[in-house]
């Protein structure tokens, strides 16, 4: 029962509406979330006219903008980690574990194996992506062979995966004699080349944008993309139609995990050029990305834009805490509300369709009578 509803969500069923109508649920969801958040602010005595300007300043004022773009890259990557399996109706909530182990793999390779320039950046990223793919890929057979939903297994694998990465960074890979839970500085050859002066924006940005464009192309224009969407719409029908659903589940879960692992690699090879325990999962990229993807209501082309919006909220939240003394956790409240409201709005569409269908049945009934 649930799979059918997930399918309708994954599919994005507002295709008949115009371009403005198609983004209406997203606009309504954000507006609704902001209204409720403002109410929460008023109830606990925070002045919204202080908080919101501080939030915007925190995200886009000069100096902060580069930092926001720096946070956009991992959030977009994690968005793909969630969105790719979601197209088949699977929920990947284990992004944290996939990202952390990907980061550890990249750090270990860069630290232990001397590599020529160029390869020293590319190979750790590939290994990070493969690690993430394996960690996520486990969940596919657990669903297709044992019937355990991926939403549960990805999450259950994630906690031990984060714990394992924490252990590796604190003991085998730790910087000797410091007692700080981080790896030594990675060799210069493994540093991601920076774009611009601040160093926050690296070649990770064009890389992730290119990969996102690739995903959108595959989703729209290729047979694989069609089969993935068909599986999301109706798994059993897709199987009947000759789609190898079980193999597709492995490919999409591993594909999502690869993006999470890649994000881990990009964070570790970027400033401060080491794996700091907890630094990957602390900013909450995984769930910011999930809110963004659900806000995009199943349209890949909208994902980069919703990710940008959610990143501005997330980074701006930290500015709001600095400037206006409003706890930055308020942005998590907004994200949670966005998800709940998106799900609620999806049903108003279902209700409207049901009402229309009922009206039609009555018409037919009267015509027959």
């Amino acid at each position, binding site marked *: 029962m*649930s799979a059918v*509803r*997930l399918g309708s*969500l994954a599919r994005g069923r507002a295709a008949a509406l115009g371009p403005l109508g198609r983004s209406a649920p997203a606009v309504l969801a954000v507006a609704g979330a902001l209204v409720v958040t403002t109410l*929460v602010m008023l109830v*606990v*005595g*925070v002045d919204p006219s202080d908080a919101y300007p501080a939030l915007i300043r925190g995200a886009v004022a000069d100096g902060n903008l580069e930092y926001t773009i720096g946070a956009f890259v991992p959030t977009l990557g994690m968005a793909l980690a969630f969105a790719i399996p979601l197209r088949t109706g699977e*929920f990947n*909530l284990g992004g944290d574990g996939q990202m952390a182990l990907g980061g550890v793999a990249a750090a270990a390779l860069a630290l232990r194996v001397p590599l020529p320039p160029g390869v020293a950046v590319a190979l750790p990223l590939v290994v990070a992506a493969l690690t993430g793919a394996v960690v996520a890929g486990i969940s596919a057979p*657990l669903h297709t*062979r*044992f*019937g*355990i*939903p991926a*939403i*549960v*297994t990805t*999450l*259950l*694998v994630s*906690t*031990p995966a984060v*714990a*394992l990465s*924490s*252990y590796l960074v*604190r*003991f085998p890979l730790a910087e000797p004699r410091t007692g700080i839970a981080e790896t030594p500085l990675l060799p210069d050859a493994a540093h991601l080349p920076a774009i611009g002066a601040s160093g926050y924006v690296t070649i990770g940005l064009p890389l992730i944008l290119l990969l996102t464009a690739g995903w959108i192309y595959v989703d729209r224009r290729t047979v694989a993309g069609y089969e993935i969407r068909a599986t999301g719409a109706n798994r059993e029908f897709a199987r009947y139609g000759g789609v190898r659903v079980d193999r597709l589940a492995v490919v999409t879960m591993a594909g999502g995990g690869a993006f999470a692992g890649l994000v881990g690699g990009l964070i570790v090879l970027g400033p401060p050029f080491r794996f700091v325990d907890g630094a990957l999962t602390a900013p909450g990229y995984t*769930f910011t990305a*999930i*809110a963004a993807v*659900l806000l995009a209501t199943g349209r890949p082309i909208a994902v980069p834009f919703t990710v940008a919006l959610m990143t501005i909220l997330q980074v701006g939240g930290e500015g709001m805490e600095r400037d206006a003394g409003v*706890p930055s*956790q*308020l*942005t*998590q*409240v*907004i*994200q*949670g*509300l*966005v*998800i*709940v409201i*998106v*799900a*609620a709005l*999806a*049903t*108003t569409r*279902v*209700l409207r369709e049901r009402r229309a269908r009922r009206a039609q049945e009555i018409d037919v009934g009267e015509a027959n009578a």
Partner: protein
Amino acid sequence: MNILELTFVASVLTATTPVVLAALGGLLCSVSGVFNMALEGQMLWGAFTAVSFSHLTGSAWWGVAGGVAATALYSAVLSVLAVTFRADPVVIAVGMNLLALGLTAFLMRQILGVGGTYTSPDLHGLPTLAGMGLDHVPVIGPVLGSQSPLVPAAFVLVAATAWWLRRTRSGLRLRGIGQHPEAAESLGLKVGAYRHGAVLAAGALCGLAGAQLALGNVTLFSEGMSAGRGWVAVVAVMLGGVRPLRVLSACLLFGVAEALGFRLQGAGLPQQLADAAPYVITLLALILAGAAGRRRRTPLETA
């Protein structure tokens, strides 16, 4: 290390209680045909509201009552959206879990005045059974003495639920609604009302679970302190299906794993292993049950 030591049994019960209370809520929803994955967020919300009410009223029992009421109210979001409007329960749950994480972290700074962890000598925790005169009874004294009254209450609730579902008219109706809502409706049962009741009861039970976690197991609130226990409760419901005693055994398995991990940490093993152990063991149990179910051709999803 002696697993049969009574203090070990006591720590298993401590670890199991919040999970089994939440799982009982999940079970009621599962019986009525609603998929409730929002247990994690509700347990966290219950822990926070229980601590807040205890902090504001100066009474642990008012804390428990406030936590139960506030969490039942919070679960009304799921109840209205998933039962009345038939919204996707999985997406609602993902949103509610995230919302609880953000709201509790935000409100604790506003209400309790600190971030991270709140603890204070003024915060009243639940009394122990030893304090209520149970410490002189052999076996029961050492096992239950350090526990709050909610620990035995949780196990009584499991038994009561099992009896209710099997032996009463309303319990039978709830099961019928879950198995075949159309048939139940044609017999004149109000399917929606029963399902609302199940979701709200699950909210109240998660509130109780959170209260036990924050005022019974410890006397503090810290951000994200439910730490995946609500998800373990979801798994316990998958493993146990609609049978309360099976759900209880799944929760006990988790409790043993957590208590064992805690002991191993005391024996010098890294903390990360203790953190991971309950999840690894829960996952393995799920895989074994899935493999067994595959042989019986009844996948977990249909349970």
